[in-house]
């Protein structure tokens, strides 16, 4: 898998006098040359607005922009490009579902079901919607190992439930959730299933028809594409019935003084000049990932996480969160070293050129559940290798020793 490292020029540098070890891909991934080149070429030769100009550049830009949409459709196996809406990212996608579909379909007394492991992006929109509509926000409790039991899911979702929103892979616990099975339970109760795929889309194959989810959200920047571009997938029949929430240029069909009509899907949800270069970059990122193969990426990360888990287990005083079984996890490990605050740990690792995340990871209710205020997190991607993990392990030993000595 190291063959792909060369595509990421950023990795070829020293940080604080050490070769960079980038273990923060769950926050944002690095971008390969193949993606940067496509974005550069667009600006160099085709830059123009989409769906407006009748000139050649306008056509080229539109073709590339819509071509990327088809790549995304194929990537998640949606039925039609009408179901693929460009957004700024996962947060905007989920907010759009809550503000558009949610606000139009949830009423007082209805239930919205989420889990304790949601990222704030898949929590606050539902919390606020529930407050506004006087609906009931219910949490699916977690098992001790940070997984979700379908029995608990069945007990939490009821015929009153209108929306079930769940992450496909947790950005803290690493847990991969049974979203397909949960979607079935949601549908049996007449609810729609919303999937937050921010940590899943970059790392494993996704088939929205197989999951049978109603909405699914992910970001480009966590999967080798530029920042500021993301996707909202929605079933066509639901999107057709949902009114847009952003009005203005690009999304209109006909405007009269006192009323207007909207373009058809997917454009009715894409008000304003879109992130054209971002969309094209996301298309290029999908080409890049698909050429490698999502199964292969998943397998590679699985091997890394299994190796890291077994090595980290040997470090005394290191606590890891989430399922112990690597089969149940995606490629990230969240942990704490006894007596060392995660920020302090992150600083020590940074001095060795190792980039990890420390903090609450935008999952404060989950931190409460874990009974910690913050954690450290190492996350892997296709460009990481065993040496990166060895560097992390050495760094953790060094940090432990350093703080033991400095404290005495």
């Amino acid at each position, binding site marked *: 898998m190291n063959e792909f490292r060369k595509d990421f020029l950023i990795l070829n540098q020293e940080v*604080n*006098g050490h070769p960079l070890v980038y273990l923060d891909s769950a926050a944002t991934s690095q971008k390969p040359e193949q993606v940067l080149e496509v974005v550069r070429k667009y600006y160099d030769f085709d830059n123009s607005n989409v769906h407006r100009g009748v000139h050649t550049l306008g056509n080229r830009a539109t073709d590339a922009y819509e071509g990327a949409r088809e790549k995304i459709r194929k990537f998640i196996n949606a039925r039609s490009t009408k179901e693929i809406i460009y957004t700024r990212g996962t947060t905007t996608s989920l907010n759009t579902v809550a503000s558009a579909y949610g606000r139009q379909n949830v009423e007082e007394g209805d239930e919205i079901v989420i889990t304790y492991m949601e990222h704030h992006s898949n929590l606050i929109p539902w919390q606020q919607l529930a407050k506004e509509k006087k609906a009931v926000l219910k949490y699916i409790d977690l098992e001790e190992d940070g997984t979700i039991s379908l029995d608990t899911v069945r007990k939490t979702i009821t015929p009153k439930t209108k929306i079930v929103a769940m992450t496909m892979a947790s950005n803290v616990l690493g847990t991969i959730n049974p979203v397909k099975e949960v979607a079935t339970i949601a549908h049996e109760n007449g609810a729609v299933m919303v999937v937050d795929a921010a940590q899943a889309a970059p790392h494993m194959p996704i088939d929205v028809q197989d999951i049978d989810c109603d909405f699914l959200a992910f970001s480009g920047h966590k999967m080798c594409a530029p920042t500021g571009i993301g996707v909202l997938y929605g079933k066509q029949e639901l999107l057709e019935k949902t009114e847009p929430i952003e009005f203005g240029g690009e999304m209109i069909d006909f405007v009269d003084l006192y009323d207007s009509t909207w373009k058809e899907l997917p454009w009715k949800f894409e008000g304003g000049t879109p992130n054209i270069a971002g969309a094209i970059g996301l298309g290029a990122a999908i080409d890049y990932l698909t050429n490698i193969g999502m199964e292969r990426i998943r397998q590679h990360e699985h091997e890394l996480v299994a190796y890291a888990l077994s090595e980290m287990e040997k470090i005394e005083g290191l606590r890891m969160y989430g399922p112990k079984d690597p089969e149940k996890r995606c490629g990230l490990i969240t942990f704490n070293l006894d007596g060392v*605050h*995660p*920020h*302090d740990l992150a*600083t*020590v690792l*940074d*001095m*060795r050129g190792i980039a990890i995340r*420390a*903090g*609450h990871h935008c999952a*404060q209710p989950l*931190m409460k559940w874990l009974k910690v*205020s*913050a954690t450290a997190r190492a996350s892997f991607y296709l460009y990481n290798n065993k040496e990166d993990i060895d560097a992390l392990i050495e760094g953790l030993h*060094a940090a432990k020793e*350093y*703080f033991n000595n*400095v*404290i005495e």
Partner: protein
Amino acid sequence: MSLNNLDQLYRRVIMEHYKKPRNKGYLDENNVTIDMNNPTCGDRIHLTLKINDGIVEDAKFDGEGCSISMSSASMMTEIIKGKKVEEAIELADIFSKMMLGEEIDEETLDELGDLAALQGVSKFPARIKCATLAWKAMEKGVKQQELK
């Protein structure tokens, strides 16, 4: 930069304050209470100040955070106790200048006592907010008191 550079950040006195914080706890609710957090990393502080006739008679803190944020709070409560409010604010200004990496003369450094150990934080931009959290809380508390 090697691990030795960390010694600029983690001076022994900082780790001592982290391990054995001074003035940890609460004053009763009649006093000025301030809650502050650093939303980017989740550090939080609960500070209570007893201010009488323009003098900070007592200060206590509780909170959760890294060694830098908690030791800074411990040192701050220690140094402002018994000082006039204006003196406390002046110290906050000096501290803030120190965090920005400005030259501080020997005499002023002496005045800062243990706090001078935090000077190295200015070389770690990601950690400056940790060090200033308690000070921001104190400044907010003083303003609250003035408005009363």
